[in-house]
């Protein structure tokens, strides 16, 4: 409004010559570095808390419980970098998984039911995109609305019964191994790698950062802001439904309350990974590390039989602290 926010600062020539900070400093204050250090500290802490923790097999196995959230968090990272947010992912998982279950029960067979589920994911993502992009509503409040709506619809179509009896080949993805590593872990590694390369080196990845930094400037630079945002929301829906299917395989059954409260965990992972809540900054690497960090913390406390009460407190605190820390780092490096 007033000139207070006027950013067309005129710098006397002398200020142009400010030397950039040395490379090591740049790397050291990166939020991902902090996440990585946390990861090490948490691993040491967890091993100290319980003698049963330090067991690679167990950690990998525990990862499969958070795998679905972690994989959605990778896409959510990109959504948040683009300056939006999607809190409805856990509900999309539940609704698409419920649809999968209902369709399978209706005799569609696994492939048919999967198609229904994936299609529903795309539609839900597009619906969010429509409300945010075409209707110009803030994504955070839109997705709170659709969070309630999608979960409610899941309850309507699936009731509160558990739908199961899927064929044996479909179930237990978390208990299939390649070289002793559970398939979900491998999938997560590969997807992280692909998305990391995509976001870090592709032209569209670059544009996602630019959109998040300034959507108006992005539009003026000829970047297809709406198209890319639509793409991200749809990807969010699609990946959520994939995550729903993976959960169905892991649990051998689906119910409307699948992944309840998962949105918080997903946001937590992304925030822990150092993605900036206001958009424009963040990396897949950060989210990748943060997913492991969450697994280590949660698993460490669970195997030490620390009551869930303390766990909830720690996670809530962690979310707030990580936002504050990331914010501080980004504001500082802005200069």
């Amino acid at each position, binding site marked *: 409004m007033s000139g207070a926010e006027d950013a067309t600062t005129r710098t006397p020539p002398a200020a142009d010559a400010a*030397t950039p900070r040395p490379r090591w400093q740049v790397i050291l204050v990166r939020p991902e570095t902090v996440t990585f250090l946390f990861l090490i500290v948490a691993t040491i802490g967890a091993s100290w808390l319980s003698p049963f923790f330090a067991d690679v097999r167990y950690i990998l196995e525990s990862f499969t419980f958070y795998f679905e959230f972690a994989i959605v968090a990778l896409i959510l990272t990109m959504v948040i970098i683009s300056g939006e947010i999607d809190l409805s992912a856990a509900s999309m998982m539940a609704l698409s998984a419920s649809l999968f279950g209902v369709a399978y029960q209706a005799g569609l067979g696994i492939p048919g039911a999967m198609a229904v589920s994936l299609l529903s994911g795309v539609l839900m993502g597009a619906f969010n995109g429509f409300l945010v992009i075409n209707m110009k509503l803030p994504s955070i409040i839109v997705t709170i609305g659709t969070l309630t709506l999608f979960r409610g619809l899941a309850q309507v179509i699936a009731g509160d019964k558990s739908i199961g009896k899927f064929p044996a080949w479909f179930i237990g993805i978390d208990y299939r191994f390649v070289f002793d590593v559970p398939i979900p872990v491998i999938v997560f590694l590969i997807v992280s790698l692909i998305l990391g390369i995509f976001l870090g080196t592709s032209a569209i990845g670059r544009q996602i950062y630019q959109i998040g930094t300034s959507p108006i400037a992005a539009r003026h630079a000829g970047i297809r802001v709406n198209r890319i945002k639509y793409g991200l929301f749809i990807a969010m829906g699609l990946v959520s439904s994939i995550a729903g299917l993976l959960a169905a395989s892991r649990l051998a059954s689906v119910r409307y309350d699948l992944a309840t409260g998962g949105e918080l965990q997903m946001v937590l992972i992304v925030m822990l990974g150092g993605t900036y809540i206001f958009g424009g900054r963040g990396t897949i690497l950060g989210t990748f590390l943060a997913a492991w960090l969450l697994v280590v913390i949660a698993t460490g406390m669970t195997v030490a039989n620390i009551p869930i009460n303390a766990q909830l407190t720690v996670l809530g605190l962690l979310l707030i602290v990580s936002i504050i820390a990331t914010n501080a780092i980004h504001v500082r490096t802005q200069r």
Partner: protein
Amino acid sequence: METATTSSAGETVISARGISKQFAGIEVLRDVDLDFRAGEIHALVGENGAGKSTFAKILSGVHRPTRGTLALRGELVEVPNPLTAQRLGITLIHQEPVSFPDLSVAENLVLGRDQGSVLGRVPWAKITRDARESMDQLGINIKVNVPMRGLSIADQQMVEIARALASDSRLIIMDEPTAPLTPIEVETLFKIVRRLRDEGRTIIFISHRLEEVRALCDRITVFRDGNLVHTGDVAAVDDEEIIRLMIGRSLKEYIHKRRTEIGEVALEVKDLCLPGLFSDISFEVRKGEIVGLAGLVGAGRTDVARAIFGITPAHSGTIAVNGKDIGVAEPTEAIALGLAFVPEDRAAAGIFQSLSVEHNITAAVPGRIAPRGFIRHALERALANEAVQKMRIRLASLRQPIGELSGGNQQKSILARWLLTDPSVLIMDEPTRGIDVGVKSEFYDMIGELAESGRAILLISSELPELLALCDRILVMSEGRLTADLSRAEATQENVMREAVPKSGVHSPTVAA
């Protein structure tokens, strides 16, 4: 520094001593000493970014000075916030109207007036009554119980003025109050301002229109680059002198001398309409030609440019680039056709503040830096480097966030961005706004060179001298319509202003500085 020799009115009301202000280490005001007297209208002039608004904000407690003191009738005072200023009898009418769109006009009038306890009751009846009275006094017809949201910018400005008047302040600072007003409203405002002076109040009047300054003000102070360069009676200086003081050298130095072959039509716009903003816009720009687009603030020039570039597409009309008819719905498409657009609001629409200069420069050419969809960093670095050399952008590193550069170098980076797309038509909206004098003349040279290389240039500017110096032709807009197409020979300040002034009111031509 020159000081006034004559004085028209009473004793000194407020005096500033050694006022300096830094923003993030950059000094935008330097050691300003200035006295204001009771019963005077004091003009504050200077180029964009000279520091006028900053000074006004310091007086009214919006900003605190980095150094320096203020004294009210000889007594040192602290003005830490706007409320204190209000209590001390200082009111600022902001350059852009400050309003609360969801509150009623009447409420906007009283908000911020010091009224005692925050838990005190709001006297709605009295507020409404007083508001009606204020409106009547100003002779404007605005309903006071409707939300501010529905008001035009001009009406909002009038409400803002009414607010200041109702506040009973001894010192009223008006930061470009006339910019959005019609001539009739300007006249009303002048009458009121004169009356206030006669009541013995002090008015600081900031304006770019020297005509207004001459018609209204008693004394004048000129700022240049944050320095006070002159204070004296208005009658003692002529316009030529004021402009020289403002820009630091004579106008003539600006004139860009060059001669290019003007080629065939590059951009043709026909019957462009966007209801509520502009209508029936038709013109063409040829290769190698620089066409100026002049007009008063709010004439709709920016809207036309945005429509051509596809940011807010027009409702009807056609646009042809190099003879090809195009329906642009997205900037992406416009760029592919060879259009480029340097936006007016550099901070919001031009740069990616926190991203590196390199990423800013290559933002519009993903295809060139990422031939197969994946960015090749060596290629990108080379492109950016070349652009930096060519445009003589001053920076410490390509990895530096662009926000750290000066405005001029930011603007150069944006121009560099567009040159990478090799555009055939370049639209520039106020490209020299908020840029220091040195860089400005570099820019003029660049614009000339671009035209020489056969590009068509549409230059929107509020600085008439700039247009007169650079352009082969000048189009004039007023109230959303094209009112004139003047050749270089026809284009004079008078001619342009005559066409720029809204026809819906009687108005004497003013100079858009």
